[in-house]
């Protein structure tokens, strides 16, 4: 049944979008960003587009609304039609009523101080009369679940709400196709869940969607997956078919869905759409495992290694720390936390839960209103900046917040020079740090020309060079493709093995499961869980109320009464029982 919230779509042609032989080379680039890309999108179809960074995903999205080649200069060949109408010679703004585009950076696509007016913005631009705008605003807000928010300032919304508002503002124009370019990259788990629930709803209502996304699990419900590799279509087909080609996905820098990979390693030819389907497929091949099945979630009696218990004296001591900005609520509320030398700790929680504020207290960027922070037994407020920097280093989420030098080497040498180290010592340390992050051959390169993953590793090198005993990394994998994520985390794991304590602030469940040994969960400024990773993933109620989902492979293993943190662990367990 059609509800008021459903947005009528205008699709006069059988194909919502048709892309024929599109090749595009950016001005000054030595190779095309897209090579002879062709596909047709049926009306009402949802297409997921995947691929490594630089594979051409965003370029393809920009071609669909003429940002390429109208806005981004370059050499364009091929033809694109939307609802049967060729886009050739149209300006970007002329395409707006036909193709709605939602970008990754939600801050840059909201222009108004009022939610209703934000939805009206695009309609104003195309000269729609006020009565028609009035008719369209409420259904658009209803469709994205923002009814009642009409008078709110968009800047006061959460990340997920901002992205849903951006979707509402393109829905109001009733375009033939909606393109979402990595819409959840900067969101916390709750925001991601909100946006993907909305995408599923829009798909069910028959809108034609093109969703660019790194996480394969999120695209399993799509009608079709297109994988791009170096600007070319490497795979195009139904999710079950494409996700079964794990070798291809890996070479394309795409993380295969954990469940499918597990089944493949168990010799089962199936691409499950969810945990239930995976469970059934395994039981068909390994019926003996039926007796291990448990009703409902496993309890804490399930066998698992002991949790991380404090054995060594604390390297970082946080004692009863509270903090709040002037005239604002408390951001940290009586936090007690010890971090040992050499530990690997993940701090998780929704945006605004106090994770980054806590980290800033450790490195001395913020001072607690009450309580104290100690580093290696010393009160942090009594330590000189150089002493703190040598003890604890902080890598910001966005590497571009610190890069300024003309060469990679100068960027890394910036810290030691500030501390007045001799030049030969600086050179030695730069070599060591660049070697550790795999950028030794880039020492004379311009940092601004590096890829996002390389810039992230450069940011690590530029604090590693100070030889800290602890490294705090704020969302170290945000915006990186799977290959870059693995490389970044391999680096972090190596540093940990070399004795450096690691604290990562993250929203990514598999990162916690694969790499961390202890988890702290924050909510509204309070620490509500502190323990081992396995213990953490057994706290169903806590996870649910924090919108933090365990990796699917962990969920599947729990249905069998065990707890595996990754695919290999689960496969070994199944083979051991079967």
């Amino acid at each position, binding site marked *: 049944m059609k509800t008021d919230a459903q947005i009528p779509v205008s699709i006069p042609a059988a194909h919502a979008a048709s892309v024929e032989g599109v090749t595009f080379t950016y001005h000054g680039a030595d190779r095309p960003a897209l090579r002879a890309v062709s596909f047709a999108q049926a009306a009402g179809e949802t297409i997921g587009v995947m691929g490594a960074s630089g594979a051409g995903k965003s370029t393809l999205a920009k071609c669909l609304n003429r940002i390429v080649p109208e806005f981004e200069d370059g050499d364009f060949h091929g033809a694109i039609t939307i609802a049967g109408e060729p886009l050739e010679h149209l300006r970007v703004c002329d395409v707006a009523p036909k193709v709605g585009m939602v970008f990754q950076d939600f801050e840059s696509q909201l*222009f108004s101080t009022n939610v209703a007016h934000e939805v*009206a913005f695009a309609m104003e631009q195309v000269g729609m009369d006020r009565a028609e705008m009035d008719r369209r605003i409420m259904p658009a807000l209803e469709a994205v679940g923002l009814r009642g928010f009409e008078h709110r300032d968009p*800047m006061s919304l959460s990340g997920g709400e901002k992205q849903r508002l951006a979707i509402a503002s393109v829905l109001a124009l009733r375009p033939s196709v909606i393109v979402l370019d990595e819409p959840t990259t900067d969101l916390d788990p709750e925001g991601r869940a909100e946006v993907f629930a909305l995408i599923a709803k829009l798909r069910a209502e028959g809108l034609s969607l093109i969703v660019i996304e790194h996480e394969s699990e999120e695209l399993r419900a799509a009608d079709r997956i297109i994988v791009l590799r170096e600007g070319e279509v490497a795979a195009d087909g139904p999710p079950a078919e494409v996700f079964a080609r794990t070798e291809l996905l890996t070479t394309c820098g795409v993380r295969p869905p954990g469940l499918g990979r597990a089944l493949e390693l168990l010799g089962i030819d199936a691409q499950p759409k969810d945990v239930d389907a995976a469970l059934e497929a395994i039981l068909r091949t390994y019926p003996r495992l039926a007796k291990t099945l448990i009703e409902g979630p496993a309890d804490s009696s399930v066998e698992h290694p002991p949790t991380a218990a404090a054995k060594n004296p604390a390297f970082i001591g946080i004692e009863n720390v509270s903090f709040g900005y002037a005239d604002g609520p408390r951001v940290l509320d009586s936090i007690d936390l010890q971090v040992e030398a050499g530990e690997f700790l993940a701090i998780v929680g929704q945006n605004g839960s106090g994770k980054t504020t806590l980290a800033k207290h450790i490195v001395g960027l913020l001072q607690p209103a009450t309580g104290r922070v100690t580093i290696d037994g010393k009160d942090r407020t009594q330590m000189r*900046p150089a002493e703190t920097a040598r003890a604890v280093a902080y890598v910001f989420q966005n590497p571009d917040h610190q*890069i300024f030098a003309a060469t990679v080497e100068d960027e890394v040498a910036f810290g030691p020079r500030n501390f007045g180290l001799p030049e030969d010592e600086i050179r030695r340390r730069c070599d060591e740090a660049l070697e550790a992050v795999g950028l030794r051959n880039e020492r004379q390169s311009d940092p601004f020309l590096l890829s996002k993953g390389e810039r992230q590793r450069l940011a690590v090198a530029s604090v590693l060079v100070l030889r800290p005993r602890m490294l705090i990394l704020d969302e170290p994998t945000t915006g990186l493709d799977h290959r870059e994520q693995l490389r970044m985390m391999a680096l972090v794991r190596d540093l940990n093995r070399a004795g450096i304590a690691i604290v990562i602030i993250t929203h990514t469940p598999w990162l916690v499961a694969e790499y961390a040994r202890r988890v702290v969960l924050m909510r509204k400024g309070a620490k509500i869980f502190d323990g081992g990773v396995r213990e953490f993933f057994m706290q169903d109620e806590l996870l649910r109320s924090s919108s933090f989902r365990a990796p699917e492979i962990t969920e599947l293993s729990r249905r069998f009464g065990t707890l595996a943190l990754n695919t290999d662990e689960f496969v070994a367990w199944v083979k051991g029982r079967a």
Partner: protein
Amino acid sequence: MPIYLYIDRGTFVHRLHPTVKVFALFVMFWSVYWVDQPIALLPVGLVMLWIAQLTDSWPNFYRLRWLFGILVFTTTIAWMVFYRRGAVLVNIPVFHVSRLSLVFGFGRGIKLAELLAASVLFLSTTKIEEFTYGLQRMRVPYRVSFAISLSFRLVPLFIDSAVTIVDAQRLRGYDFNQGGPLERVRRYVPVVIPVFMGALRKANNMAMALEARGFGFSHEPTTFIEYPVTSTDIMAFVFLIGLGTMNFMFYWTGVGRIGPLK
């Protein structure tokens, strides 16, 4: 901490027609421009204090209290170097400390503070879209008026980003307070470059998002929000004309000036 100055209240000032608000900003600037004498700056200052009280804009003035203080203090001191008129009261090298230079410097400081106060009041009571609308009604082309209003939105974002960048460089042992005034300015290079690069990136993203929403489709976009002209707007308009005329008369009659005619 809120990064915008707009304070949502239902006062009659908030409800004024955007054109009247833009005109009010212009009249405040006009009034302050013609007057140098601190006493003569008092009426327009009192009007601003009244509006601040009425619109509950004090939190914004509190946030910017240091800027107001620095403006008045440094301007007063600086003019004692350049304005060398009147009998010297105290002998201090480089400075010309006279009653006249003190009054002139203080007057200039108050002028700057009042210009800032007018802007703060305007931004405390005017939404971005009202600003755009007001400028459009004053025949400023849509693209120009939108760009001006958007720049108000971007500045707080850049400040936010600059604060993060300062933190990042400080954690790498950078001391922004070393050396003399010129050296200190030079030491902000590691902040300016990332801010500038970030601003370029943000501006590029925003421009793409704007065009993708149809910006430029029509030279005269329609408006969702309508602002009817009320009797309050007419009364405010008349009051502003009176205020502007009075301050021009302060100049014309010499009441608002300091020292002999130039």
